[in-house]
């Protein structure tokens, strides 16, 4: 019979079913259903106010869901067992400004139940890793936003977590800091850890995700695998005349994200195999087709396409 320990380590990193949070009348997260396996780097992307922070707060037990279920590392979300193996970088990380960075890490290490002997090695190592070794005895009061973010990253890694949840890790970071976040994510993935990343922007960091979910107004609109499948996902721009709304509606069989301009139709196909079928359909319905241009979709375009140019505000 497998021990509870091994059961836990074979369980998904994060599993949610219809997770929901409502603040008074305001629905922050509608119905979140996610399955994230061990070792995955998962990006949770969406504009400000989309419900990203609320979602991770429910995973961590900071916020009580109004509905649904969630488990983290095989334990109920928010339980002590789950938190033991989780590292978290809150959005806008702040802490007692009268502590030095080394003291902050020691304090958090002790909260993880680590011993002083362990921390004597671990704290300087982490400070080195986030580039703050020279500032170990400086008070946080004198730290810039970027330096605080680095301390925050270090405290999220203290316990060599199986799951690392980062809420907007690149906000306030210069390019060097963003590269640091990217490198940390890679190192953690190579260790076998799962990384869950919230972000409202797209940088080199988000592009390293294995999968991303796009969320807006509390709803996941789309989950994509980035490694590989974005290349298959293709946007197509068609220059054409004599098409009406009923023709566009019919396109929905093979394409998504259909938009039309004066003499132009754009849509996305899951596979290029659909393109000849679509062309036949258009021509046989009397549409004059002048030009068909498949376009490779970048992650940024995908983001804007899914989330909308207005940023969802």
């Amino acid at each position: 019979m497998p021990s509870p320990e091994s059961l836990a380590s074979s369980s998904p990193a994060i599993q949610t079913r219809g997770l929901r949070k409502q603040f008074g009348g305001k629905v922050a997260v509608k119905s979140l259903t996610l399955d994230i396996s061990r070792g995955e780097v998962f990006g949770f992307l969406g504009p400000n106010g989309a419900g990203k922070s609320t979602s991770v707060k429910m995973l961590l037990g900071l916020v009580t869901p109004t509905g649904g279920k969630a488990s983290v590392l095989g334990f109920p979300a928010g339980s002590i067992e789950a938190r033991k193996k989780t590292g978290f970088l809150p959005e806008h990380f702040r802490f007692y400004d009268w502590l030095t960075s080394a003291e902050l890490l020691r304090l958090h290490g002790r909260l993880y139940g680590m011993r002083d002997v362990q921390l004597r090695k671990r704290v300087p190592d982490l400070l080195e890793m986030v580039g703050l070794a020279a500032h170990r005895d400086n008070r946080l009061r004198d730290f810039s936003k970027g330096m605080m973010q680095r301390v925050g990253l270090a405290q999220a890694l203290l316990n060599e977590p199986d799951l690392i949840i980062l809420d907007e890790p690149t906000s306030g970071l210069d390019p060097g800091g963003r590269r640091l976040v990217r490198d940390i994510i890679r190192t953690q993935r190579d260790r076998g850890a799962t990384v869950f990343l919230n972000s409202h922007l797209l940088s080199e960091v988000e592009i390293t995700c294995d999968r991303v979910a796009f969320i807006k107004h509390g709803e996941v609109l789309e989950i994509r695998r980035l490694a590989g499948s974005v290349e298959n996902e293709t946007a197509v721009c068609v220059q054409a005349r004599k098409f009406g709304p009923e023709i566009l509606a019919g396109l929905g069989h093979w394409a998504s994200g259909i938009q039309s301009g004066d003499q132009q139709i754009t849509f996305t196909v899951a596979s290029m195999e659909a393109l000849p079928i679509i062309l036949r359909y258009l021509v046989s319905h009397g549409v004059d087709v002048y030009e068909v241009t498949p376009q490779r979709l970048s992650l940024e375009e995908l983001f804007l396409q899914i989330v909308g140019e207005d940023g969802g505000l």
Partner: protein
Amino acid sequence: MGVWIMAGVTFREAVRKKVLWTALAVGFLFLALFGTGLHYQVKDLARANPVIRRQVPNGILMVGLYAVDLLAMVITVLASADTLSGEIASGTIQAVATKPVMRWEVLLGKWLGFVGMMTVYIVVMVGGLTSVAYLLSGATALHLVRGAFLIWLESVVLLDVSLLCGATFSTLTNGVLVLGLYALAFLGGWIEQVGAVTHSPRAVEVGIIASIIMPSESLWRRAAFEMQAPLVGALNISPFSNASVPSLAMIAYSTIYLTVALVLALRSFSARDL
């Protein structure tokens, strides 16, 4: 374990952010003022009759203790009002509350830290004041330890209410609310006193209701009763006559009150979204 870590960091915060030192500095300034006043009073009483010569300094000692009590209560509220609401508003609490510790451990630890700080403060101030009074005039408090314990209990009552409100309201609302309740109890205490002297049972009732809502002042008045030399009380030299002394039942009530307030604070902090 989490409890002790949080207690330590809370106590250290009071020391490092200079709350404790500032409070002690203000306290020593106050002691200096008290000592100077008492010194001249003793000199000018040199030719008065021996009973007066003994009792006036005792009365002054009581006034001094009252001021220490007031100082301790204000510091209790100022030091603790921000700890939950402030850390929730800034998000500081998130890094702690996502560690493998229970919420109640976090709050109980903070509570212990503040209690530790206030214990140091009350011991230093009550000890300092009575020593100054004794050295300058020979005045002594009757049951000093009992009195100091009741002052300490009063501080814990305010701390618990401040933590309870801090788990729900903003820092400013919390501070105004707790100090407001304290002022209400203070006023109620005097209404009760005056009512007892003027034989107005309904005024006494008003005072009792006030001390049920917030028992801080009745703890002080019991403390004054314990510390006061019997003659001072009987002669009404000090403003703390024993016209209406809070009963032991009132102390028992205060103990229940502070326990319930702490339990409610722990529950409401554990249940809320951070």
